[in-house]
């Protein structure tokens, strides 16, 4: 549906994007994650044809945005970081203008303008606001008008740049629900620097850092790719020293650390076979023999926060260097059995 190949963008001598490639299938909801200045907005501006890339191609449903912008743009609905609202117009007037601008009336299955706009206003929860002047609306409602604007013309792809920024918590939840609802029938690309937001709405995450794509995959894949030292979390009742000594006897375990209360973390030796079943079995038996009660045992899950911080804590590449792309494919490591918590 949307394909990006080797996208690069320079602002003067500053490289904002460096060889970014990804593709998004029909109906996917993808989150664009990155710190401020990572290149999220630049990428989105290029995808929507607002900026042009220094190098690389963008294909929207097979149509190149550079060679056939008019056709490509009809397939995209864009909500920029700051919603592009004419603040002196009423909601109805504004949406009607966008309707004309996008030539939505010329589409084959076009409904009458009034009915069409009413449908969109109902969908975005601004029905009843038709005659309010946009300037006087709250930020949450302005954001909804921005979303409504993006939806006019029934684009197959929605590109939303930080749609919840600057909203209060209640508004954030509402907008998120709305986006989730919209994502059911459309391809959605959403950017944010808030992890939980991306997690809440998108199945797949693309992480940008300093203009480079550092990760691309589902939440689980990303978390999995980073658990390089294999860890198991335990909850054991019993004497601390006994537990520690007994755990250390197990050959697969290289390190034992006590967290707090009954919680322990053990690090497993990197084994040839990727499963840790043998180790877990050994832990269970050892604990039982030592008379300690094993309350729970599970693989330690790396949270998305940790993934993000780890990926984005790399030092800035020195100017002129060709940055390595080794990180980029880290997600491709297949991680099996990610979520089967070994609770007893």
């Amino acid at each position: 549906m949307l394909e990006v190949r080797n996208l690069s963008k320079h602002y003067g001598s500053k490289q904002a994007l460096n060889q970014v490639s990804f593709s998004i299938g029909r109906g996917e909801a993808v989150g664009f994650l990155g710190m401020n200045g990572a290149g999220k907005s630049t990428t989105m501006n290029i995808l929507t044809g607002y900026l042009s890339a220094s190098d690389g191609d963008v294909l929207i449903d097979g149509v190149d945005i550079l060679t056939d912008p008019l056709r490509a743009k009809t397939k995209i609905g864009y909500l920029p970081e700051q919603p592009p609202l004419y603040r002196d117009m009423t909601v109805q007037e504004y949406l009607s203008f966008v309707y004309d601008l996008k030539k939505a009336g010329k589409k084959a299955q076009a409904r009458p303008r009034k009915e069409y706009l009413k449908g969109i206003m109902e969908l975005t929860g601004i029905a009843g606001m038709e005659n309010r002047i946009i300037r006087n609306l709250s930020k949450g409602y302005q954001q909804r008008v921005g979303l409504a604007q993006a939806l006019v013309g029934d684009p197959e792809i929605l590109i939303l740049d930080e749609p919840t920024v600057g909203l209060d918590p209640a508004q954030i939840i509402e907008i998120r629900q709305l986006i989730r609802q919209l994502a059911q029938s459309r391809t959605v690309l959403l950017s944010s620097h808030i992890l939980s937001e991306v997690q809440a709405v998108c199945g797949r995450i693309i992480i940008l850092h300093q203009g480079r794509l550092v990760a691309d995959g589902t939440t689980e894949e990303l978390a999995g790719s980073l658990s390089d030292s294999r860890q198991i979390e335990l909850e054991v009742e019993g004497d601390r020293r006994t537990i520690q000594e007994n755990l250390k006897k197990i050959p697969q375990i290289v390190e034992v650390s006590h967290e707090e209360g009954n919680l322990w973390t053990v690090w497993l030796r990197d084994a040839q076979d990727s499963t840790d079943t043998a180790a877990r079995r050994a832990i269970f038996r050892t604990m039982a023999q030592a008379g300690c009660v094993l309350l729970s045992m599970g693989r330690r899950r790396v949270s998305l926060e940790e993934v993000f911080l780890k990926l984005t804590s790399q030092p800035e590449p020195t100017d002129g260097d060709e940055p390595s792309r080794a990180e980029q494919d880290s997600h491709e490591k297949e991680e099996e059995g990610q979520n089967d918590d070994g609770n007893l």
Partner: protein
Amino acid sequence: MTAIYKREMRSYLTSPVGYVFLAVFYAISGYYFFATSLVGNTTDMSYVFSNLFSIVIFLVPMLTMRLFSEERRQKTEQALFTAPVRFTGIVMGKFLACLTMYLMGMGITLVYFLVLCAFRIPDAAVFFGNFLGLGLLGAALCAIGIFISSLTESQVIAAVGSLAIGLLLLFSNSFTPVVSNQLVSKLILNCSFYEHYLDFTRGLLNLADLTFFVSMTGLFLFLTVRHLERRRIS
């Protein structure tokens, strides 16, 4: 293009800008009409037009200053430039809206013409020559203003910039005495708006003058489109 034209017209007519422009235009032209034609007991309206000539330089930037700079400042241009519309369409929509407002202001001279008809029919050729000249001058000034507005985010800079360029082009013939080089002097004279406007006030329809104003308008609209395209790349 029509969507943009309609929006701009609406914006002129729901904000004070359009009304202030029209009011000032009507007031000043009314005064000149009274002071030259009525008090002077003449049906020759050329005085009105030659005075209006310098007034429109000051008034047109009022119409053009916010056309692109405001879009850029409010980030609404992102909606325009990501919509399936050509830059040419956007620029033309705005230009035509601006020109419509200008013609609405200028149209008042038709009323003065009719007023004079009540006394005696004025020389129609002179009047329509003047009318056409003022219209073409306005179109060129609108195009210049739109171009300057596309260069900056600030309305004030856009207004002052287009005012300065307008003045420069209008009065460039006053530089000719201080330039000794014949060729440069001739070049400046030929670029002077006033020089080209003069023939219209005499009721002459000179193809060279017509071409001059039309191509000036075209040139600046073209530059605007090119500049917008250029900004996407940088």
